[in-house]
């Protein structure tokens, strides 16, 4: 799975709101097609790290380097905001825990999927429409509801729509913060199945934040365990979960800590 070159290189990234609150001295590489899970208890800094990694929150120090489609290394926070936003709607995607943060609730599902295409210059309605329909199918949404607003969708459907809206420009890296949080167990399971299929089919690299070690085990090949803003343990998912080295991970895995 790992090719010679990483896609993303994170070097000593720090974003602190207060001592121990945020993320501190984070370094790792992400390879094409790799799914990396970030786990840790509430308040350990997972979301802060993810937001910083995905060009939406400037860190106090450290770098995030990204190898783009043209094979150029970009230093995220040295880019102009225009370039960062462009990256976010072309080569990257962000799936939020709460669909209302990631969707435009006031316009139809089709418009939600088509927005990124239009933002990067697609000006043919028919093409936008057919891609919308195609993606509705791909994420197993009822295509007859393409003109309905997401507010009329269930929670699980909204997450599917969010995923379609991101994948329509064929991103290479997708950042997800608790994408299955708040969903019923059966709905969760179907969504995870879908995610797994899409990730493999599209050779996506994914960084996924989750409370849920079962989710992490199902999706992630590699895990980062965080506590008080720092990485306490990292490794292959099965290794970390089956043979945790750090005391904190051991507590986490034995469910003594309810994340």
């Amino acid at each position, binding site marked *: 799975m790992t090719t010679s070159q990483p896609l993303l290189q994170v070097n000593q990234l720090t974003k602190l709101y207060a001592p121990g609150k945020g993320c501190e001295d984070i370094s790792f590489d992400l390879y094409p097609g790799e799914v990396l899970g970030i786990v840790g208890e509430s308040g350990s800094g997972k979301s802060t790290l993810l937001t910083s990694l995905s060009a939406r929150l400037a860190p106090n120090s450290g770098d995030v380097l990204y190898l783009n489609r043209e094979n150029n290394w970009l230093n995220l926070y040295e880019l102009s*905001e225009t370039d960062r936003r462009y990256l976010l709607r072309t080569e990257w995607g962000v799936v939020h825990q709460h669909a209302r943060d990631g969707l435009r609730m006031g316009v*139809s599902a089709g*418009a939600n999927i088509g927005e990124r295409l*239009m*933002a990067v210059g697609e*000006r043919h*309605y028919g093409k936008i429409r057919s891609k919308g329909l195609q993606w509705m199918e791909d994420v197993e949404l009822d295509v007859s509801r393409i003109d309905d607003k997401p507010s009329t969708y269930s929670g699980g459907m909204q997450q599917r729509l969010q995923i379609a809206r991101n994948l329509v420009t064929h991103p290479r890296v997708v950042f997800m913060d608790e994408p299955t949080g708040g969903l019923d167990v059966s709905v969760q399971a179907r969504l995870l199945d879908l995610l797994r299929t899409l990730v493999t089919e599209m050779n996506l690299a994914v960084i996924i934040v989750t409370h849920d070690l079962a989710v992490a085990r199902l999706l992630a090949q590699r895990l980062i365990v965080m506590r008080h803003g720092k990485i306490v343990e990292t490794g292959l998912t099965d290794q970390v979960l089956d043979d945790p080295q750090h005391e904190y991970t051991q507590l986490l895995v034995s469910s003594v800590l309810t994340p």
Partner: protein
Amino acid sequence: MNQNTATLEPIKDGYNFAYLDEQTKRMIRRALLKAVAIPGYQVPFGGREMPMPYGWGTGGVQLTAAVIGESDTLKVIDQGADDTTNAVSIRSFFKQLTGVKTTESTSAASIIQTRHRIPETPLQADQILVYQVPIPEPLRFIEPSEVETRKMHALKDYGVMHVKLYEDIAHFGYIATTYAYPVRVNDRFIMDPSPIPKFDNPKMHQMRALQLFGAGREKRIYAVPPYTNVSSLDFEDHPFEIQAWEESCAICGSKDSFLDEVIIDDQGTRNFLCSDTDYCQQQVAKQAEKEEQAAEGEQDDN
């Protein structure tokens, strides 16, 4: 704006020339210079209260007050007509407070203050068209935050404008937006042309006259300088189109002006009339002239 307005003497006792004090006028003119320098960019300004009837809005009136001078000739239209209550009262307001000439003729005016229309008669290089604007921000429908819309303009982050057009086509089969149809100015800023019919949009493109836009409540000024590109947003497979009518004007017979549908009697009989009253009268006058000439010609033949 034909002379140094800063030295103008009051016309009516107790009121400054054109109502606004000189300091306010200078402040508005500074904002206008910036607006002209960056076509389509919304410039904030410290707007003032104006003694106007509720609902007309004061942005356009403040701009007119800031640029009008003694030798100007003012025309005021509302929905294309010179004779509506609002148009009449604004015209008389400026007449009383500036003593300038007023006119209903588009070609005789140096300043045309308008709401909801661009005159049919093409404007000339020495004219100024002042628009009254209710909502200046074209991105507001999708983004309530002012901070965010400013950023979107700065970063040319305009994908959502086509989202709106997409929604129209998805729901109606065509672009149903007919008023305040968004435009791109000078290949850069997306601008709300105010609630003019999209019929008027092509007139903004490469217009010889200076176009000024004032939003009073939101305190924003923007401008399109003469000879500037103005294009209406659309899709390749749903190109921008203006309104067209099968009917022609019941008074002047015009087939190519913007028509209003009006009920003319108690039986509900409908008629189509030019919305631009000056244009309609010009057409009638032209025809009368032609008929006269034709009649003379016939007499000569005899």
